[in-house]
């Protein structure tokens, strides 16, 4: 069958099972967009290419599939970079297709030419510059395979315009053959035995759960192991929602902005079992110090994570699901009752601050998060921006089901929450989707409200308005005792903004208004903006407690 390169690209996407793509057209990707007219795939036209990548990421995370975004060459390609890097840091499977100038113009600084494979190689799992239309079916097949297997990540395919136009005899690609890509998924039985022995000796073990437990769908195995061995669980930012917030063995999120009991347990544990977590500095602080105190077991599918930030005593390179199931099958015999009693008591003693929903001058974010979670139900998907809003959502929203928390953990990318909520809603139209936003971050991808409107995506925006870059403001107040460039005094009139897009809107400032307002927001069809007045001095870093001071 004779096809054009562009037709082969569309066909390859369909064969990969893609039903929805996010993108933005331009000259160098025009042949693809023309071929798209004959396809049933849904295309979501974002307002900026960065939004397309973030939306594809939200879609991928909500549906647990590979997200796809399509951009043109030059400025389209450079605009998508932040989205690619954000997905890379959080190991999100994406395939990014960029148009490129004609092959014979490459290297001549021609109009809208940029070396996007060169630019993105540090933060793509792999990338391709297509040299011949014949290669397209194979490259697309490889790209989806690479993006979704092993440690997932973004893969970029740069397709020159002439290759999209070339007519060639289509041949179905053979099975993926990548000798340079070794996948180790099954846990090694000897290593499992070693970990079992370590677990059985431990008096004070914890399991530290990262995003890998979610991407390998190992949450059931995690809970079974935690329960049967009575091991307390802490999560990184990326591990949130892997275990229900109210699970008796769950202590909370690690890190400077995390939960006291979780950090306490990390500091006192005699064995730390890291599962699908890369020991980022934001979560773990000084990894060396932890390794001096405790036995470290590291389970990760990416061999390069083993020994990168912490030197483990035992390591298993495997899919988290296989490793946890393997451990479970060995039925380790542990006695941790004293330890569990200690950390559960600490958790109870340091209950998260909450306030009754009584009249107040400003909205207390923890209370808002609790009520949001209670009313939106266990299936609701929550995206966040970055800043205090992210911390409040992470620490106080009651997550009950896996994959319901979508946030930029590794990069901390402001402007991620709005487009990723759009992607999540497009992917899961039957689920409530709540976008927790800060007034600063909300304006970083503000243009995507247009996409939300066009797609009739009923996202519920909960805007925490403190008229400033709250997290930076908080750090400046603690560390520098004076402020620099954190005030957003001239925020727009958000009510008029919502009206401009035809979204529902209301504004609350008192805790006794939360419940009614959230109910109305959830019951109103279509997109909705709930503006919440937050005290600009509301902290996310709580004063150090006496136990912590030692």
């Amino acid at each position: 069958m004779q096809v054009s390169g562009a037709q082969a690209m569309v066909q390859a996407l369909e064969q990969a099972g893609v039903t929805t793509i996010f993108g933005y057209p331009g000259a160098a990707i025009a042949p693809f967009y023309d071929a798209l007219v004959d396809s049933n795939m849904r295309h979501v036209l974002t307002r900026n290419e960065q939004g397309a990548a973030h939306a594809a990421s939200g879609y991928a995370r909500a549906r647990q599939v590979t997200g796809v975004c399509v951009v043109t060459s030059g400025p389209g390609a450079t605009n998508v970079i932040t989205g690619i890097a954000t997905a890379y840091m959080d190991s999100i499977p994406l395939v990014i297709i960029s148009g490129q100038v004609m092959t014979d113009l490459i290297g001549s600084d021609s109009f809208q030419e940029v070396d996007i494979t060169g630019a993105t190689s540090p933060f793509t799992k792999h990338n391709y510059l297509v040299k011949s239309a014949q290669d397209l079916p194979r490259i697309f097949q490889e790209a989806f395979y690479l993006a979704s297997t092993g440690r997932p990540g973004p893969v970029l395919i740069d397709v020159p315009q002439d290759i999209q136009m070339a007519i060639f005899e289509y041949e179905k690609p053979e099975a993926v053959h990548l000798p340079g890509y070794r996948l180790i998924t099954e846990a090694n039985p000897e290593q499992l035995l070693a970990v079992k022995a370590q677990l059985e000796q431990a008096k004070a073990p914890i399991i530290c759960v990262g995003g890998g437990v979610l991407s390998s769908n190992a949450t059931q195995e995690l809970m079974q192991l935690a329960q049967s061995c009575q091991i307390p669980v802490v999560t990184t930012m990326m591990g949130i929602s892997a275990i229900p917030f109210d699970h008796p063995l769950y202590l909370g999120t690690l890190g400077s902005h995390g939960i006291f009991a979780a950090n306490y347990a990390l500091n006192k544990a005699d064995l730390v079992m890291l599962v699908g977590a890369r020991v980022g500095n934001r979560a773990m602080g000084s990894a060396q110090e932890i390794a001096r105190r405790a036995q470290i077991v590291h389970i990760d599918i990416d061999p390069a994570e083993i020994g990168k930030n912490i030197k483990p005593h035992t390591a298993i390179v495997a899919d988290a699901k296989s490793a946890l199931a393997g451990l479970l099958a060995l039925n380790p015999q542990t006695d941790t009752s004293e330890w569990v009693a200690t950390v559960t008591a600490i958790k109870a003693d340091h209950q998260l601050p909450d306030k009754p929903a009584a009249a107040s001058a400003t909205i207390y974010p923890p209370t808002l998060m609790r009520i949001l979670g209670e009313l939106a139900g266990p299936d609701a998907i929550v995206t966040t921006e970055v800043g205090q809003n992210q911390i409040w959502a992470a620490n106080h929203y009651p997550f009950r089901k896996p994959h319901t928390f979508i946030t930029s953990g590794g990069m901390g990318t402001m402007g991620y929450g709005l487009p990723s909520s759009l992607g999540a809603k497009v992917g899961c139209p039957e689920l409530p989707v709540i976008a927790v936003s800060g007034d600063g971050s909300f304006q970083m991808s503000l243009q995507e409200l247009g996409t939300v409107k066009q797609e009739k995506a009923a996202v519920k925006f909960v805007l925490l308005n403190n008229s400033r870059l709250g997290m930076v403001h908080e750090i400046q107040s603690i560390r520098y005792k004076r402020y620099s460039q954190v005030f957003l005094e001239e925020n727009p009139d958000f009510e008029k903004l919502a009206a401009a897009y035809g979204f529902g809107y209301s504004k609350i400032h008192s805790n006794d208004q939360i419940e009614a307002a959230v109910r109305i927001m959830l019951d109103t069809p279509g997109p909705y903006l709930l503006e919440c007045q937050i005290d600009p001095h509301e902290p996310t870093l709580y004063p150090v407690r006496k136990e912590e001071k030692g």
Partner: protein
Amino acid sequence: MSQHTLSVLVNNHPGLLSKVSGLFSRRSFNIDSLAVGICEIPDCSRMTIVVNGDEAMVDQVIKQLDKLIDVIEIEHLPVQNSVFREMVLAKVAVEANQRTELLQIAEIFRAKIVDVSLHHITLELTGQADKISGFLNLLEDFKILRIVRTGTIAVPRFEEI
């Protein structure tokens, strides 16, 4: 800190050299030399990379290189059981009265004369890095116009079974 030599089989891919060198710079790995050329396998090249670092760093270098899809195989070559070679071209200015001395040095090291004119000689020497360095040390008494080194290439020795 010590030197480690990696023999890396890669797909012969135009963008790959920049991917490899980019990896070294962004992860702050110290690279002493990198030599690359086609090899016995069609469409593949073999790189010899000499890195300087402790065990933990070399472990990371190997693992990070291995993550590149176009890297097919990495061998950490044992110092005792490998053959290491490097080549240098040294272009030296010599007046008639220094000529004999220079030729004697060349003779001792078995360096080849590959180009000569009235006022200069270009010498070629192949050997292990320390031999090359010893040779270059002796040339310091002369006026050196240019030194070009290839970087080390290496191959493991046959194992006696």
